[in-house]
């Protein structure tokens, strides 16, 4: 363990704050520390991952006598927002108690945005230096991998994961332990683990944050998964749009290999694992598991029918375990605290915590981790602070979009819905990977639907006709509504085609592509009707006005 440091500045170095100038800020802090000398010299300045409130970066956390940073909350921690390099001396002065010029930029740690979060997957995020394996080790990384390799059988590991009730965080929510069993119980032979880090849903940046903030947690989770299913090779498939995540992951893999935590005979055991990064090239469909496997093998990312599932026939024909970043990053904590501990968080059907990326028309944008079952209202209004400048019972929120182009829009009057897999599905949306985009009163729902449909047109791989041609037709129909030249017959055709594309497409992209249309039709039908040339024809006029939002 590192020796206690009385004062520590943790500078966010994730890509959100970096784009707002955190690198220059950190350089200015280092320079100012050298220049000021005296008390300032005792201040540790450390780059860390995401400090959550991305919308107000660059962020710096100041720990007072918090020990070695193991638990920054043990001491006192202050968080400063929107800092400029010129303010570096003032920040050091605030740290050493010589001034308080920056009081206006200090955030209240008791604000619900911070107070209501529960860090499980993100416990190291914003605490460890993502580029230092020594710091990660000091914070407990790889301890569970070593323990598991020495003390547990693969069956025992899988048993803990099953007890935890963890479900896939990529969106579909398949029970993780069950998937691991399926792979492990295939006939003897080689197996592969794959981490799906092709986080393509617009509005989602949870996986990017984990990769940029705490890459060793993911590597540890993958290594444990590989041990549990008997794999000796693995791939992390990252989208090319995340250059910093790729850079840090590659560095972390190199460091782990150098420490003997990857490779042959890991930590003195007989377990071997070779991990590689594969970078995508900008194809949303590669988030679909069979398309992802094709892409890893250097081919066009087109999906294939299932079964056989990748758990049976995957990479190069071998059984392959595919899990999402957040799923794998949950594994080390589950093994440390036990499956039952994890299962005690959340709801009956959805255990544990979920990381959300909160963005759109909301005051506090950023990364939020809350227990499953937390209501959307808590996340959007209490944590997110509602729409800036708006008030009223729903804080100016018109709808919340969840699940990206495969999900739907949940209207404000249903904000009390608990966030779990089943509740969101019942509302015609889905959990998806965790992007929550808040829409204010001025957002037009047919336009939102068209926005997503154009996305699907662009990203359809072209292999099956319903998706390739159907999404184009749907987009053209939505054009008619957006441009106010639709007829009531169009409304019927739109719904019929949505059902057809959903029922007959080959993969999840096409099957879910109509969801944004269907969910906006379900809750905001009046907007589609108002877009018809002769809305008066509507019979009976208010039949479709599902519980209109009344202030």
């Amino acid at each position, binding site marked *: 363990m590192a020796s206690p440091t009385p004062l520590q500045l943790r500078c966010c170095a994730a890509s*959100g704050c970096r784009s*707002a100038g955190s690198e220059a800020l950190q350089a200015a802090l280092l320079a100012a520390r050298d220049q000021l000398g005296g008390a300032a010299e005792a201040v540790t300045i450390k780059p860390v991952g995401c400090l959550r409130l991305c919308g107000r970066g660059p962020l710096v956390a100041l720990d007072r006598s918090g020990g070695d940073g193991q638990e920054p909350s043990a001491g006192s921690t202050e968080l400063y927002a929107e800092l400029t390099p010129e303010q570096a001396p003032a920040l050091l002065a605030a740290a050493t108690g010589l001034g308080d010029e920056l009081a206006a930029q200090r955030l209240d740690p008791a604000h619900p945005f911070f107070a209501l979060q529960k860090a499980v997957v993100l416990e190291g995020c914003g605490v460890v230096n993502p580029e230092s394996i020594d710091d990660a080790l000091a914070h407990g990384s790889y301890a569970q991998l070593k323990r598991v390799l020495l003390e547990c059988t693969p069956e025992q590991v899988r048993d803990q994961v099953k007890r935890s009730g963890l479900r896939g965080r990529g969106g579909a929510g398949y029970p993780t332990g069950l998937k691991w069993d399926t792979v492990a119980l295939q006939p003897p032979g080689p197996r592969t683990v794959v981490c799906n880090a092709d986080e393509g849903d*617009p509005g989602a940046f949870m996986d990017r944050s984990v990769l940029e903030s705490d890459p060793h947690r993911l590597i540890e989770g993958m290594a444990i998964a590989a041990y549990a299913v008997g794999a000796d090779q693995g791939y992390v498939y990252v989208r090319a749009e995340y250059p910093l995540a790729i850079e840090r992951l590659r560095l972390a893999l190199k460091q782990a290999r150098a420490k003997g935590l990857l490779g042959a005979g890991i930590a003195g055991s007989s377990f071997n694992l070779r991990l590689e990064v594969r970078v995508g090239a*900008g194809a949303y469909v590669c988030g679909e598991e069979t398309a992802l496997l094709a892409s890893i093998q250097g081919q*066009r990312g087109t999906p294939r029918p299932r079964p056989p599932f990748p758990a049976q026939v995957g990479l190069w024909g071998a059984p392959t375990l595919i899990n999402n970043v957040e799923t794998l990053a949950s594994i080390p904590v589950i093994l440390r605290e036990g499956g039952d501990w994890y299962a005690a968080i959340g709801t009956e059907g959805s255990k544990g915590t979920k990381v959300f990326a909160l963005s759109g028309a909301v005051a506090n944008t950023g990364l939020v981790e809350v227990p499953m079952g937390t209501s959307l209202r808590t996340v959007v209004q209490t944590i997110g602070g509602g729409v800036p400048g708006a008030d009223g019972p729903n804080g100016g929120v018109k709808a919340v979009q969840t699940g990206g182009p495969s999900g739907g829009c949940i209207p404000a009057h249903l904000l009390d819905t608990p966030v779990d897999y089943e509740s969101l599905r019942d509302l015609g949306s889905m959990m998806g990977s965790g992007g929550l985009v808040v829409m204010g009163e001025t957002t037009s729902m047919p336009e939102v639907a068209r926005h997503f449909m154009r996305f699907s047109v662009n990203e359809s791989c072209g292999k099956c006709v319903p998706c390739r041609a159907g999404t184009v037709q749907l987009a053209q129909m939505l054009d008619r509504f957006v441009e106010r030249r639709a007829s009531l017959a169009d409304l019927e055709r739109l719904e019929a085609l949505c059902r057809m594309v959903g029922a007959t497409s080959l993969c999840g992209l096409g099957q879910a592509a109509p969801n944004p249309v269907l969910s906006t039709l379900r809750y905001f039908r009046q907007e589609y009707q108002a877009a018809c040339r002769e809305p008066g024809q509507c019979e009976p006029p208010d039949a479709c006005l599902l519980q209109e939002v009344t202030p």
Partner: protein
Amino acid sequence: MIAPPSAQSPPSAPSPPQAELPAQAVERTTRLIRQHRGRADALIEVLHQVQELYGYLPPGALAQVARELKLPLSRVHGVASFYHLFRLEAPTAHRCAVCLGTACFVKGGGELAARIEQRLGLRLDDAAGNGTWALEHVSCLGACGQAPVLVVDGRLEPRLPMDDPEALDRRLSALGLTAGADAADAPGGAS
């Protein structure tokens, strides 16, 4: 992501596609294919690196990759044309990408794209752009907390002020997003 154009290849006019490839780049390509031990599953990685070399994937380079990875040219071309990030045409000297992901869309990404189209006199997703600049859309950069965002020559520009047209114009001018003639900093700018 969107790499700035490499130093050796910013042509002010699109170069003829069948031009001889520089011997040095051809050699580098051979070397990097060898680093991947000629494995066909490294095709996407190889294409990324070749694109870094030339700024795009010229036909001759695709043929070379096919030959040396022992793959049919159709397979190499199929992969290169499938993925959005591979460019089959020479890029303009400067490039700008506007994010049209959901958060950026809600925060006015569409208007931002229209404003830049107007300023630069070009069309969104037209690879030829105005000869100096090209504007493309991206579907999400994961910088949703900073919406709306742009990428200008490889640099992420957060929080464009959509509610203040004057501030927006100042910001865009500072980024060099100015129509051809008075683009002082664009060396290959049309006169």
